[in-house]
């Protein structure tokens, strides 16, 4: 785009009157250096201003009406829940090796309430890297491979049908539970869920069905929930899966036992469904807690930086704070909390706000420095987890099916007192009841509030309209610099040609040379394309490496590095040879190459910001300075001035920092200390990223291209 604009500019030059917008464009391009410095500084500053600009959350959907109904959960239900907790923590139930006993207990309890109960057997699915599935929906029609009977998990599912409802919608309550080594916290979370469940079997106001999923977390919480959801969302109409189940006697045994012991028809071997899911809550209770008051942590980030609707978080926050008196937490980067520079920055903002307020009393944007630091820490973690694209809990599985879900982790101040346990059961249960009743009031899907936001505290958020400003400022210099570089490259070659050729020949050769010169950027584009191609190959390599059996992370990483270098050399010899021949001109054309690279980075970042803002923002922070400063080392060395030397140092440092492994080690070093850093860690990290089909992965590759330019 920048190029075309530039062409139109050069065409219009002879004309005396130039349109103001064009004149503005020319002005910006000619002062691109200053503009880019100003824009980048403003972009970074705007990012740090975000906690100050955060707005208070509000419940946007009228229908929700959280807290308008008084909670109905009574001590009777709490004692029901307590009974389940006791039964589960009873050592007898843990005797069985597979933990089937406790599942039976849970199922029996559900049946006693009159709910429909079924078991869902699943095989844990290994996370596999599918390079071509980045943007496709989660793979549903997976072919059932031969799993061994020994490794399977059992989800227990209880469903309450809404007494007057039409059965078209459902609310899901998930409690992860590992029957083999369950802590007291997990049992307690089951107790809370059970007390709510027992209440909901009695109420008349349900408009949506309630599904209680006890997810077997022995193969990971996410895997269990994801397996159940896959089964739920993609009904199988053939009976292919049944022989698979029959092959495993243990499972059959379980089913049959249940069938015998229960006279009612509410238990079924087949998979049970309710309506479309309106929302899902994952409930956990943490075992150990060093805090002095009951807190509840909200985890919201799903895969690829997707967030549930803000209204869901608002409802939970409102009910927890104003009704149950719990403290609400969202994740923070704890290391940032104690940083002194952030504190001083907050103080600067605070004093600035005071000055502004004294100037004009209506300006009230200042927040206290401590609040600022906390807001920044929360914002940073929000950005980090969104950018990483790895879900922060089992709720991520729901988001893949466009279901709004969050994980609630209750961390009670710990004591073994019975009164305390009843209290936490009551308050936790009432919170869940309130959220369910509120969601039950919903008439449509969550749609009123924001989906694109960053949290700075449980009750404050930065919406997409605000945080995009920081990003836009950051990448605004890119097209200008690209255009100015292009103009420079063209004009310099123009001058040299004008000097050498005789005036008589100008008219003849000019048109021809202009035609050639205007297409010369294609050469550089080709170079950039080849480098991108190499990046793509490098990014696909791990898929093949992961096929090699019995490979430690360190060796596979080494293989990856070796193969990457090999492929680079091959590409260079095969494709880049014509460029190598024209080495003399290449030195002049570095500006053109840089301009094309910057344009491609601009386009890439722009697209990435649509897919995952946080990734684009962090990427822009790393890449924009690098792109703007990049210059061939040879030229800097030859120039020999102090300025060029500084620039060279900057380039080298930036180049190394932005190279993904280097960046990873730096971060890890900052967080954990450098001692235990290991190459294998990087491999593991990358591996975890493929597993989530993360867009970050694509992005890292893009960073790699840029580095290769430096």
């Amino acid at each position, binding site marked *: 785009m920048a190029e075309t604009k530039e062409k139109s500019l050069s065409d219009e030059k002879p004309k005396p009157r130039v349109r103001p917008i064009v004149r503005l464009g020319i002005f910006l391009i000619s002062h691109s250096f200053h503009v880019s410095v100003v824009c980048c500084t403003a972009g970074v500053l705007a990012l740090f201003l975000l906690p100050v600009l955060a707005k208070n959350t509000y419940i946007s959907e*009228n*229908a929700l009406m959280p807290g*308008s*109904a008084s909670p109905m959960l009574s001590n009777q239900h709490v004692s029901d829940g307590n009974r389940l907790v006791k039964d589960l923590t009873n050592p007898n139930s843990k005797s069985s090796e597979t933990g089937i006993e406790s599942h039976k207990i849970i199922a029996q309890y559900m049946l006693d309430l009159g709910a429909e109960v079924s078991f869902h057997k699943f095989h844990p699915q290994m996370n596999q890297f599918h390079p071509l599935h980045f943007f496709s929906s989660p793979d549903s029609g997976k072919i059932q491979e031969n799993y061994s009977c020994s490794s399977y998990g059992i989800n227990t599912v209880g469903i309450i049908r809404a*007494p*007057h*409802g039409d059965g078209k919608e459902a609310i899901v309550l998930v409690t992860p539970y590992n029957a083999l080594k369950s802590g007291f916290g997990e049992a307690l979370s089951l107790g809370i869920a059970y007390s709510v469940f027992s209440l909901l079997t009695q109420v*008349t*106001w349900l408009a949506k069905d309630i599904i209680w999923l006890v997810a077997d977390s022995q193969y990971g919480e996410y895997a269990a929930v994801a397996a159940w959801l896959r089964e739920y969302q993609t009904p199988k109409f053939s009976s292919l899966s049944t022989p698979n189940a029959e092959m495993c006697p243990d499972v059959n045994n379980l089913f049959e036992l249940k069938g015998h012991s229960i006279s009612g028809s509410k238990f079924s071997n087949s998979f049970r469904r309710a309506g479309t899911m309106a929302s899902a809550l994952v409930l956990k209770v943490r075992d150990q807690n060093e805090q002095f008051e009951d807190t509840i942590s909200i985890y919201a980030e799903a895969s690829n930086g997707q967030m549930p609707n803000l209204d869901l978080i608002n409802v939970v926050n409102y009910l927890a704070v104003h009704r149950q008196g719990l403290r609400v937490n969202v994740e923070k980067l704890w290391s940032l909390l104690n940083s002194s520079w952030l504190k001083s920055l907050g103080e600067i903002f605070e004093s600035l706000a005071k000055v502004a307020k004294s100037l004009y009393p209506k300006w009230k944007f200042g927040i206290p420095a401590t609040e600022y630091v906390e807001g920044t820490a929360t914002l940073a973690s929000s950005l980090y987890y969104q950018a990483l694209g790895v879900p922060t809990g089992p709720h991520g599985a729901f988001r893949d099916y466009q279901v709004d879900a969050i994980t609630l982790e209750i961390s009670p101040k710990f004591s073994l007192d019975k009164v305390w346990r009843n209290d936490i059961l009551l308050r936790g249960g009432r919170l869940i009841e309130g959220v369910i009743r509120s969601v039950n*009031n919903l008439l449509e899907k969550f749609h009123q509030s924001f989906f694109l936001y960053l949290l700075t505290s449980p009750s404050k958020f930065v919406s997409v309209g605000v945080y995009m400003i920081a990003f836009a400022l950051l990448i605004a210099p890119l097209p200008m610099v690209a255009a100015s570089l292009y103009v420079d490259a063209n004009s310099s070659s123009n001058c040299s040609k004008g000097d050498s050729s005789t005036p008589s020949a100008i008219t003849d050769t000019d048109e021809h040379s202009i035609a050639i010169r205007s297409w010369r950027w294609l050469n550089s584009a080709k170079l950039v394309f080849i480098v991108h191609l190499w990046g793509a190959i490098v990014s696909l390599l791990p898929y093949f490496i992961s096929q090699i059996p019995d490979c430690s992370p360190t060796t596979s990483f080494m293989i990856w590095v070796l193969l990457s270098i090999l492929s680079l050399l091959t590409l260079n010899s095969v494709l880049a040879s014509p460029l190598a021949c024209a080495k003399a001109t290449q030195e002049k054309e570095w500006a053109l190459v840089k301009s094309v690279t910057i344009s491609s980075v601009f386009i890439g970042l722009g697209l990435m910001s649509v897919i995952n803002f946080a990734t684009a923002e962090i990427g822009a922070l790393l890449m924009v300075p690098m792109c703007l400063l990049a210059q061939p080392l040879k030229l800097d060395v030859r120039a020999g001035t102090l300025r060029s030397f500084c620039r060279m140092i900057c380039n080298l440092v930036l180049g190394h920092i932005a190279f993904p492994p280097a960046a990873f080690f730096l971060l890890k070093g900052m967080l954990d200390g450098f001692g235990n850093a290991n190459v294998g860690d990087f491999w593991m990290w990358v591996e975890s990223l493929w597993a989530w089909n993360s867009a970050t992965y694509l992005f890292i590759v893009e960073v790699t291209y840029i580095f290769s330019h430096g």
Partner: protein
Amino acid sequence: METFINPKSLFHLLLLPCLLLYSSIAYNSSPVEAAMHTNNWAVLVCTSRFWFNYRHMANTLSLYRTVKRLGIPDERIILMLADDMACNTRNKYPAQVFNNENHRLNLYGDNVEVDYRGYEVTVENFLRVLTGRHETAVPRSKRLLSDEGSHILLYMTGHGGDEFLKFQDSEELQSHDLADAVKQMKEKHRFKELLIMVDTCQAATLFNQSPGVLAIGSSMKGENSYSHHLDSDVGVSVVDRFTYYTLAFFERLNIYDNASLSSLFSSYNPSLLMSTAYYRKDLYKRRLEEVPVTNFFGSVMETIHTDAAYKALSRRNSGRFEDEMSLDQSVHHIKRRMLIKVNDGDEIHDINPELLQGEEGASKCPWSTFRKKFQKAENVDSLLNYGLVAMIPLLVISTWLVQ
């Protein structure tokens, strides 16, 4: 030949007295005077859907109950409810609607006739009801069959704004639509008096342009109307403030009470309402102090005592009779106003003075009218007329005898 002519002449002769009679009667009745108040109608509209608008349905049903209690029969109430809260799955008390958290009164009992429900409640249907332009298939129970003697109460509640009222979350009634409908009603003689009562945000803007009616709204322009209280058992707000205090006013009344409209209108306390109730009376002819609320919210007719079981009055005669009545009434009104002044807080319980007044003047069949006219006999013209009329039978008989 004679036989041919004779019936014709006979016919002429017969026609003559009728004409004379007609002229004598027409002479006395004034054609300008409006019709008497003969019946009461109520159009009660709840315009909003969705569970969280429970209170709007409760408002409307409460008003429905009140006007029914005060005497408007079901067939003269058009009840429009845009949603069915009673059978909403979220209702903790299925098939019941309450307007108070004490749950003492179920508004959705057995005898509630909803005329327009759910998606039938649209702006189009509403305007059709008002203007009476229905398709032929619409049953009579769904029509507003009012006439020039009707007093109509039009109550609307829902979500509104500046000069509009939202219907069904998808369309809106604008104030000029309403004004136009009222004007059409006026042209078509569909009402004698019309009271528009609106409980929405910025309700006053809705009758910026309504002609010839009395109107009251719950809030001024730029003000919101608020709900009165939340029922934490049902989980929703159950009644709006304006309607709540309206109902509180009416709960003290029964069908015989004579509380005036002005006492209703002045009963709204802006601090309790959290908005300013606004009423517009500049287009209304009568003094509000003289109009009992039962003129709109109930159906208290003047009972006309007659000698005969079936009175054989023509329409015209009754019109004339009313002329006299209104004169009597005005006298009575003066009397009553004085009474009000005497004990102004307490409403007067004189059992329909109009009835007594009516008895005095209503011992009227055609014959007594004649007699009275004769007795008065002041007017020479009328005497002449009656004389001529008396001559006619003589003439007829003599003609017949001659043949």
